[in-house]
């Protein structure tokens, strides 16, 4: 129970003043201070009353595995099920007694104490676009169709809300997306990654180049050809000369906001912070090797650098256009060889490296890491649910029961939440919906899942509709 007095006391103490500065600094004008304070106060209250989560500043790395990992092949194995269900892989014991995972994840098997597995994710959406929207924004799509593109009135991505309610305090973007240029199905952009009704200013900074390449750089943060740093600063003095002629422009709030962005842009381009954050050359070769020399592993390493530099949320999309699949999780054909030879070992290696790396740097407690797809894969090999192209060697989409993993951010590793039936067709214990998961992510960042945001019609809408955080994640060992 927050009393009025209690809340206004927050207004006067250092915490909220810093919030105010932060709001000013990034120009999150869509949100009034009272709303922001309310969101913070409620989150702090929840944290206090439950003793779970924390009001400390948190970051998040969201590893979005397009197509979805097969729960049966990786996290929720059923060795006693018929062959067409249990598949070709065998479970192995792990560091945590009682938890078994796939034999092709020996590195993660040694680290099960660092992460939690939810084996009871469930929803009903079978197509990539709407399911991805659901998984990433927490909002159920209106329709379950292939051609599901993004819309201006979409629910905002988790990261967009986070950059509104919990913007970065350092001169780096709040929300960064590391992905191929087009993420989505049927040539349409995947919804759930952008600002939606909050507007484009809450879209992520998209980094679409391959950080595994030696010439990797972020165009927005680098200078154009022929404009060296010296020339930019000369230009900046000329700009000042022109702008001094009309100081009255500084009187307009809009101009002042634009000016703030100019200052930030100059800082991003010229200050070492942001460039250093994106400069993977600064990482020891040995560490880069430990993650693995491929695009996803290096993006994961980059994500760690960004979080270290103060970015609030990094969403890494492991996947590209669904109709041009290469090496990701949409295994309609060749499910077992693809996973065994490439997907699972790559994932095992980079995900373990990330957990170790975050822990070594003391970042793990303040960084929630989540690896999830938009759904899982069919229990029966060759079963068709969404894609007629699925053959007898593949697994199709399966949203009714699937597994995801979470680590860091103060959650307790080494636990399994929820149970599936004997074929992972359905959830039998502790179902977790995308709404619940989104509420969990907000909770982890110290954002109340009851916080409100406004859409373009100025309608007050809850950041997530109807979900409750999975608080056991932060619970003590049973």
């Amino acid at each position, binding site marked *: *129970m*927050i009393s009025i007095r209690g809340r206004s006391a927050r207004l006067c103490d250092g915490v909220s003043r810093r919030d105010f500065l932060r709001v000013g600094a*990034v*120009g999150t*004008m*869509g949100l009034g201070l009272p709303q922001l304070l309310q969101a913070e106060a409620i989150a702090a209250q929840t944290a206090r009353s439950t003793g779970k989560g924390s009001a400390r500043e948190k970051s998040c790395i969201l590893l979005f595995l397009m197509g979805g990992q097969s729960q049966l092949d990786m996290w929720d194995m059923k060795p006693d099920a018929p062959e067409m269900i249990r598949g070709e892989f065998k479970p192995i014991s792990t560091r945590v007694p009682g938890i078994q995972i796939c034999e092709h994840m020996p590195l993660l098997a040694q680290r099960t104490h660092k992460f939690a597995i939810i084996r009871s994710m469930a929803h009903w959406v079978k197509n990539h676009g709407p399911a991805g929207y659901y998984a990433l924004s927490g909002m159920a799509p209106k329709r379950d169709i292939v051609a599901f593109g993004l*819309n*201006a*009135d979409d629910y905002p991505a988790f990261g967009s809300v986070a950059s509104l309610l919990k913007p970065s305090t350092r001169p780096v973007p709040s929300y960064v997306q590391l992905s191929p240029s087009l993420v989505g199905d049927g040539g349409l952009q995947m919804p759930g990654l952008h600002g939606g009704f909050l*507007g*484009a*200013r809450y879209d992520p*900074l998209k980094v679409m180049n391959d950080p595994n390449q030696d010439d990797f750089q972020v*165009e*927005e*943060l*680098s*200078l*154009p*050809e*022929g*404009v060296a740093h010296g*020339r930019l600063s*000369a*230009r900046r003095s*000329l*700009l000042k*000369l*022109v*702008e*001094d*002629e*009309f100081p*009255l*422009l500084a*009187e*307009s*709030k*809009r*101009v002042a*906001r*634009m*000016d703030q*962005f*100019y200052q*930030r*842009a*100059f800082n*991003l*381009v010229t200050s070492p912070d942001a460039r250093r954050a994106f400069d993977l050359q600064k990482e020891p070769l040995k560490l880069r090797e430990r993650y693995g020399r491929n695009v996803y592993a290096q993006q994961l390493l980059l994500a760690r650098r960004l979080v270290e530099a103060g970015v609030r949320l990094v969403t890494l999309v492991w996947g590209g256009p669904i109709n041009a699949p290469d090496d990701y999780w949409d295994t309609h054909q060749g499910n077992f060889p693809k996973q065994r030879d490439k997907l699972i070992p790559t994932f095992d290696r980079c995900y373990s490296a990330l957990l170790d790396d975050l822990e070594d740097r003391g970042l793990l407690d303040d960084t929630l890491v989540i690896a999830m797809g938009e759904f899982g894969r069919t229990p029966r090999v060759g079963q068709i649910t969404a894609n007629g192209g699925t053959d007898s060697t593949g697994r199709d989409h399966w949203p009714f029961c699937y597994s995801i993993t979470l680590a860091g951010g103060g959650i307790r590793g080494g636990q399994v939440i929820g149970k599936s039936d004997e074929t992972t067709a359905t959830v039998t214990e502790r179902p977790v919906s995308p709404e619940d998961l989104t509420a969990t992510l907000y909770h982890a960042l110290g954002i109340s899942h*009851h916080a*409100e945001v406004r859409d*373009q*019609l*100025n309608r*007050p*809408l*809850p950041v997530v*509709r*109807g979900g409750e955080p999975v608080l056991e994640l932060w619970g003590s060992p049973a």
Partner: protein
Amino acid sequence: MVRCSTLGISWLKTASEASSGGLPERRAGVRIPQNTLPSGADSGGSSASPKRNSVRMRNARPRTRQYVGGALLALLVSAGGSEGAAMPRPSHRRTTRQELRPATGVRPASAFTVEMAPKVLRLEGARAEQGLIVTAVYPDGTRRDVSSAARYRVVDPTRASIAREGVRWLVRPRRNGDTHLEVSVPPMPAIRVRLVVRGSGEPAPISFRGEVVPALTKAGCNQGTCHGTPTGKGGFRLSLQGYAPDADYAALVREGSGRRVNRADPGRSLLLLKPLVAVPHAGGRRLAPDMPEYRVLSQWIAEGAAEDPADTPTLVKLEVLPGRETLSLPGARRQIAAIAHFSDGTRQDITRVAKLTSSDDDLVTVTREGRVEGRQRGDAAILVRYQHLLEAYPVTLLRDVPGFRWDSPRAENYVDRHVYARLRLFQIPASALCTDTEFVRRAYLDLLGRIPSADEVRAFFAGAAGPGARARLVETLLSRPEFPDFWALKWADVLRIQDETLRDPNAKAYHGWVRDSLATNKPLDQFARELLTASGGSSSNPPVNYFRTLQEPQEFAEATAQLFMGVRMTCARCHNHPFERWTQDEYYQFAAFFSQVQRRGAGRRRDAGEETIGLNEGAEVTHLRTGKIMQPRLPGAGFPAIRSGDDRRVALADWLVQPANPFFARAMANRIWSHLLGRGIVEPVDDFRESNPPVNGPLLAALARDLADHGFDQRHLIRTIMASRTYQLSSRAMPLNRDDETYFSHALVRAMSAEQLADSLSQFAGVPDTFAGYPKGTRAAQLAGTRARTPFLKTFGRPDRNLNCECEREKEPTLFQALTLLTGRQLQSKLRADDGRVAALAASGRAGEVVLEELYLSALARKPSTRERQGLLDHLTRATDRRAALEDIAWALLNSKEFLFRR
């Protein structure tokens, strides 16, 4: 029908009242005496702890109430002595005595009259109550709320009792019959109002719809973030703000395993335990046992938790007393009373039951009991929500501004007269007239969507400046082909002209039709009618595409209301609009005008996106919740006569585009105003509602009238607005108008739109953009659909046209915009182009000063100042690479806020 006749148009009433002098005239600089209130004038202090035990109080009182002579009472009050009337003394009395002390300049005693509201007091039912609203009215029109300080006496005290609760005085029934209430505000003589008591002996059980649901609303249980959210909270779901009482009754009484309402042991009902936090409640503490809402809920359960009998009179009208007022700060306070009128002719004071909210808490607040307190200058409304109705009580708050002086700027036309009236009322000075340089840049950007070229600037100044020059420029620009291009863009955004849904060649045809309509200056009523009633093939009759951008009657209705009525109806699709009068029924009745619209693919040409819009006479719209077929009904105008075979849309269009229609002309005038002034008189432009009143009602009414009187000729209105001094005011703020972004005291500085910026950059650099699918030389403002969108346009806020809303165009600056201009390859390549302006100027061999001037005129429509000239020439002479140095200067000009913003 009573509901319908007042729907959404009460702001009209206020507008016309205000224009006809309904507001007290307030002369600039004339200080209205603040301290001439009658002794004992209202002391406010809503935070005072009320003595609630009215029963005891009634009994403790002498049977015959003493009326204490005015002069004596005044003396007693000012001396802080006790009063003979045995009134409860609020604990805050001491703190407010200061205000009551007579100050210098007290008027003669005869300086006011006493007004009482309501004019007749009706107490109908044993539990009826009536709050008393008393106003001291001064000869100059100033009104002071003296409800709390007035003295009251029931002439026949066996009929009714009177008691003070908190800051309110309430009368309650004792025995049926007629008597009078005597009201006196010393030193004026007492006045009498009739007091009618009926039904005092009859049982008065708690009404579910009339009291229980409103109590849930007032306690916040059914708000959108709590149990009113569509999924409910904690397994308990209520209808948002109680719009569906039948569903709420089921939720309370039938669902929840009967634990929510326990008739056998009312105190164990979850409905009572939860809000007290007697059991854990995620929503926290909402009620206390001594709150009226709690008493209503517990009493209702104790009485058996029944639904209302079928013959219960229904609510037909809400009324808020007293009428519209202007309140003066500081100390602006007003007690209001909300009266519900029922179908059986009875009335109830429901102030305490209704949900009272302020449209803007920064300006004015309201307590649960209806105590209104002003905080800042401006216009706001107190919204009274009770059952399915919503009534707004408009409040205008004024404050004397030290040092304010009205310089009587010249009024060019009615626009200025209305704007000045508002500015003088709020004591905000108007800025000076903008310079010719500012005007020429402003006019080009507003009408043509691009900055003027250096030659165009020179031509304006060469063409004999002076009076009439600005008007001549406007006339010239209105006849340029870029004008329909740029203004078609505004419509194309909100009509959702995009390639994805319309497909070629429809997007281009539709856009072409809009552009041609502007080029030929098609009257706006005709424009709207052609769109709304369009039938036929999508390429042969482009306006049918209006119905191809959307899917179903509900969407057509929402789009039509938003575009042509300025009303956002969307909320009412699923529930009664939480901030507005629109009910769910009205929503579906409006949607019924579009029920017959049918889309058909046209044979083989379907691949090309050719479709036909026709009518399917049998198709109907059903209500989401009740499943009933809804008949088309016009908002505020009832059921139109529609014969079978008629196109219902024609009836709608006939009604909509009449000059007297309360929505259309205003919505159109408001949009045009906002395009030119950067802010609507109602803002957002498509959000007309009681809780969002126009910032200058008379101005909006006058613009709408002018537009309608001139046959909906939008060029006429553009010309009129641009001829006003208001449009031509400088953006340079003054100390006393710096904070005003509302009343048009100075021009609003605003960022160029994506297309304005792209086309201006291209024009400056002499390097046109290329857009896929369009001929070379096409400007961004001419793009028909959205396919040729570039990352640049997207970054600067060009919408994807997925909404019928101006709001889809991003106006807030972003970090990526700054990065795009700072380091973006697009601007860089324009500056470096070998065939561009910078290269040409570098190679021209012209003197540095001449080149500088050319760059300045091209970018900023002005010449460099001496200081700038010196600094930049310095840069030029020091440079080893002249072209690179000019690129740098051009870069600085284009990145300057002076360039990026229209001021």
